[in-house]
């Protein structure tokens, strides 16, 4: 039986088993008003989004966050100020509430200064993994209380943006190790940082090489192939997958170009406009993260990653033989990404995408 095709729960002790039949309505009833009710409820409650940026110092993480949300999330460190790199990896979180057209968003950004900056970077991913798991743990504890809150505060990391330095060659061992581990726990979106140091051709070549590296090491970045629900999603997501990793440039200063005020970086040889598709792919990143796939990111975190963690945690404490839902958090040589996650995403028929039409592994 296809492990993803789970029948709905059969455990309801109904007196007579219901047959689901579809009925035709003879006129307008007004059921679709429920969508508006949903919207009102959502706007009243507000949204939450937690994003984590990971990368070596100097790659422009803080600037990128400021550019994404068009506000000063925190002060970006200027080069040459001699800020000492922290000895160990510390995670800093800052939370803001932003509002746009009546929609309130509680945004939490977690930064990781000191990542990959030491001489010996062994196990530098442990604090990050620990932080992510801690958030899952917190949610789990809230969920299994007897009297629990109406709305459990969600601090789980929904998306992790990984900044790849623009070497132009390929992924470094540190990148590969980190991505391998993190892709199983959280949604990871890799980006090429400081892309203004690469020409367009170099960018494309770099991108192809990174994609090849990711395939070789079986690293599934967001949007994951195995969670595509149907043909529409697959088409959409494969377009995105072609362009991952995005080559981005961040800037929080405005300059005058052709009479317009744009965000950009001013150099002697020109102004790099951040929101210009011909210059860099920042708009793609922004659209992916905020405008189209935010809810999707949250859903996958809640339904897949959190559930995996929960299974792992509950199994561990029971000292039971590990079942198929167990996720190996310790690194393996080349962990197969798809098999531990046997839970399907939605109730629609989820075709187990094994096609190799656009992918050679």
């Amino acid at each position, binding site marked *: 039986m296809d492990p993803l095709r789970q029948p709905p729960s059969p455990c*309801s002790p109904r007196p007579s088993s219901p047959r689901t039949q579809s*009925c035709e309505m003879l006129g307008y009833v007004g059921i679709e008003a*429920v969508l508006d009710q949903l919207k009102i409820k959502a706007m009243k409650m507000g*949204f939450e989004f937690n994003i984590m940026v990971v990368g070596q110092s100097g790659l422009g993480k803080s600037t990128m966050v400021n550019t994404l949300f*068009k506000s000063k999330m925190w002060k970006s460190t200027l080069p040459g100020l001699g800020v000492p790199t922290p000895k160990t990896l510390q995670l800093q979180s800052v939370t803001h509430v932003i509002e746009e057209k009546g929609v309130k968003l509680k945004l939490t950004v977690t930064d990781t200064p000191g990542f990959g900056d030491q001489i010996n970077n062994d196990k530098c991913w442990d604090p990050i993994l620990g932080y992510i798991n801690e958030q899952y743990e917190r949610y789990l504890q809230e969920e299994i209380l007897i009297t*629990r809150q109406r709305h459990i505060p969600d601090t789980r990391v929904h998306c992790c943006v990984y900044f790849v330095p623009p070497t132009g060659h390929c992924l470094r061992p540190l990148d590969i190790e980190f991505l391998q581990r993190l892709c199983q726990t959280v949604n990871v979106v890799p980006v090429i940082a400081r892309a203004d140091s690469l020409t367009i051709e170099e960018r494309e070549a770099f991108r192809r090489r990174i994609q090849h590296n990711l395939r070789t090491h079986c690293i599934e970045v967001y949007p994951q192939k195995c969670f595509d629900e149907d043909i529409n999603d697959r088409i959409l997501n494969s377009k995105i997958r072609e362009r991952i990793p995005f080559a981005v440039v961040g800037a929080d200063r405005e300059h005058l170009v052709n009479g317009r005020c744009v*965000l950009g970086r001013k150099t002697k040889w020109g102004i790099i406009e951040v929101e210009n598709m011909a210059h860099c792919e920042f708009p793609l990143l*922004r659209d992916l993260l905020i*405008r189209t796939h935010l809810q999707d990111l949250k859903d996958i975190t809640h339904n897949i990653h959190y559930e995996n963690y929960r299974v792992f945690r509950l199994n561990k*404490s029971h000292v039971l033989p590990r079942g198929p839902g167990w996720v190996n958090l310790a690194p393996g040589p080349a962990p197969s990404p798809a098999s531990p996650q046997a839970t399907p995403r939605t109730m629609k028929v989820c075709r187990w995408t094994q096609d190799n039409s656009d992918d050679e592994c």
Partner: protein
Amino acid sequence: MGRAAHCSAFAVVKGQGLPRRRQCNHVSRRDRTGERPAGGLRQLPRWDSLHHELFQSHMAAKTAGMPSQLPDSEQNQKKDNTRSLTMSGHVGFESLPDQLVNRSIQQGFCFNILCVGETGIGKSTLIDTLFNTNFEDHESSHFYPHVRLKAQTYELQESNVRLKLTIVNTVGFGDQINKEESYQPIVDYIDAQFEAYLQEELKIKRSLFNYHDSRIHVCLYFISPTGHSLKTLDLLTMKSLDSKVNIIPVIAKADAISKTELQKFKIKLMSELVSNGVQIYQFPTDDETIAKINASMNGHLPFAVVGSMDEVKVGNKMVKARQYPWGIVQVENENHCDFVKLREMLLCTNMEDLRDQTHTRHYELYRRCKLEELGFTDVGPEHEPLSLQETYEAKRHEFYGERQRKEEEMKQTFVQRVKEKEAMLKEAERELQAKFEHLKRVHQEERMKLEEKRRLLEEEIIAFSKKKATSEIHQNQPFMVPGSSLRKDKDRKNSNFM
């Protein structure tokens, strides 16, 4: 009239445009690529269409055209580390509610209605009228010995909203002569649905998003139109259900009551409910868009409804109505009955709230009671917070220990019994052996005796034959002369014999 009232609720709600009333579409699948109902939801920006747009024309043009958002005024600090931020440009997350709605459309909606009322009071007809279809059903008999619940699930679709509707009917309610057990099956059914959900939630490997939610979201309680007051059975049933489900009482077959009587009846019913402490569902009045209309509807409870799927020509159109010799009762006429109000409240305005209440209030209450019953608490004996996990672990260890102990005990008793049985068998064996020996001896003795006897007998035979021989010789001696040959023969015989 009904139509206008129906739409006016919307005007309050949205303030944007009104949805066009549309005929029910045939299987209009979830339409991601384009048309959404006009005036309804904003079109969600598609990733690739935006991408395309951006590639063609520079994004700069777009940002220039869009007025920079005037930052909202600072909000109050909610938490210590939460600050509100003003943005200097358009970020674009106002599409978030649309993303949420899209996902909900994909998943589909689920709604479960429980209809409680006596047989023949018009439950099935009302449901048919509410959803404007003919759910197949036949009249139920009045002669059931117990109350049973019958659940049926239907899939309805209206434009792009898919609804999985489950109607649960009570069969045989109020028909028995002794009605003491009437409401218990209903309570048990509701609890069973909560239990099923709780079981699924407590599983290790669970799939909640896949789970067909069968918890009852609303209970329509049908009151018969006597015009006097609530029946005792009704009161009892409602009292036992009010903490488990959202109850909306309706007066069924309302065309049997006149308007003045209806007013008095409603007042009497509400006062009885209040004085007996029955908590019926109040439409929520905290959101200002629907507060006014909900508040006014709260005053019209319980709704007096008439159900009918038959169409009658009134004026120049066909309306759903019931035809009597003295007139026509139109179902969707607000002056005739409250059906339109019920439909509006139930489906158009508060469906989401009903589901929400069921999940956050009734289900949580059930869960809390159930877990406390099982012995879990949140706070340990020293008032430090205990997690469900630890309590569960502790209980499990305890249970294991108990089980071990019992196993040991059983083993011991088993071994004991085996020993006893063995001893018994050995004993029996020995006895048997002894008996055998004894018998053998007896047999031996008898044999010897018999041997003895035989020997004696043989000796006697020999002695007897000797005697016989000698006596014969003596007898034959006087007759010896004639027969010397005879004597010779006799001698010969004797010698042979000897």
